[in-house]
């Protein structure tokens, strides 16, 4: 019930907003089309301004993934992981999640297919993928759009959040499934 209600909201949200917001404008006496054009003018510059930031971040991550450093790290940490609740198979997914959206989706899909979509491992992989966003993409896009270069405590705070989300995901799945 709740799920279908949420799905309906997701489906209708965009068309309702696209009509509802200008409707509110008309009621308030706003020249909606003129104001829309004035705001929309910045769209191109913003998108283009992000390019250098995104190229820089994605290239570094692409090189890191291409080298096979991920497998090296997983193998090196295997003995340590076996003493924790984290299965060694999902460890690369936990590390890759903040670095690469497409990369972690490919990894999660592979785990789901290999262990089965209803298995504990498959569901853990799905939960891990869904439980956070790609940190370095967010960093490049949002700070890039306004030209902020010194990110201060952003990365450590987000990594703490990602680690907590990953540990909770593994624990909750092990407990529930």
């Amino acid at each position, binding site marked *: 019930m709740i799920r279908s209600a949420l799905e309906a909201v*997701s489906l209708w949200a965009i068309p309702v907003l696209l009509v509802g917001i200008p409707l509110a404008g008309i009621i308030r006496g706003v020249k909606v089309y003129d*104001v829309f054009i004035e705001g929309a003018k*910045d*769209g191109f510059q913003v998108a283009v301004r992000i390019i250098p930031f995104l*190229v820089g971040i994605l290239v570094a991550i692409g090189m890191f993934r291409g080298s096979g450093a991920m497998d090296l790290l997983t193998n090196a940490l295997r003995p340590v992981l076996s003493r924790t609740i984290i299965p060694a198979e999902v460890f690369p997914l936990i590390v890759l999640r903040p670095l690469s959206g497409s990369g972690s989706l490919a990894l999660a899909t592979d785990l789901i297919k290999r262990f089965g979509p209803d298995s504990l491992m498959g569901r853990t992989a799905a939960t891990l993928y869904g439980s956070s966003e790609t940190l370095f993409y967010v960093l490049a896009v949002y700070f890039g759009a306004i030209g902020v270069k010194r990110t201060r*405590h952003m990365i450590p705070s987000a990594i703490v*959040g990602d680690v907590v*989300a990953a540990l*909770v995901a593994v624990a909750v799945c092990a407990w529930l499934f």
Partner: protein
Amino acid sequence: MLNYIWFGLMAIALVVAAFNGTAGAVTQGAIDSAKTAVEISLGLIGIMTLWLGIMRVAEKAGLIALLGRALRPVSRLLFPGIPSDHPAIGAMIMNVAANMLGLSNAATPFGIKAMEELQELNPKKDTASNAMVTFLTLNTAGIQLIPATIIGVLAAAGAKSPTAIISTTIVSTLCGALAAVTTAKILQRFFPE
């Protein structure tokens, strides 16, 4: 920090490539990623233009300020120092709400608009303000009511109940968000603005 992480990722790649003999894959990774980055950016032009236009209408109609005032208790707690009727608050709420519904296409322009508004209040333009970091930690935590992408993958793989992971995802993402925002609030005094 980003300087060291950026250089570190590439340096590790080079060293590992020397041992693994994967120099070709590293080169390919660099070239493909550069192309993907530009495609992502250019792909944003259309939706960015659309939502920035709609956002301006919402602002002029007073809807953004209304949204900010409605959620004043939350915004006071998370973003002290930003007036609750400031357009930044409304844009941040729109971004979080769109992410929750899984409307990532709309969420990105709202988020960028929020960052632009926060930048106007920011005294040092090349340095992140406390409000920016709090907002982005909330954003990267990725609070989502229905993780549609991965449910799609589960369903395509023939899962009997692909939506079983909704509850586990919500619990872990909320714990992550709480931890991230709390850490940001604690750490902000150790990183001078």
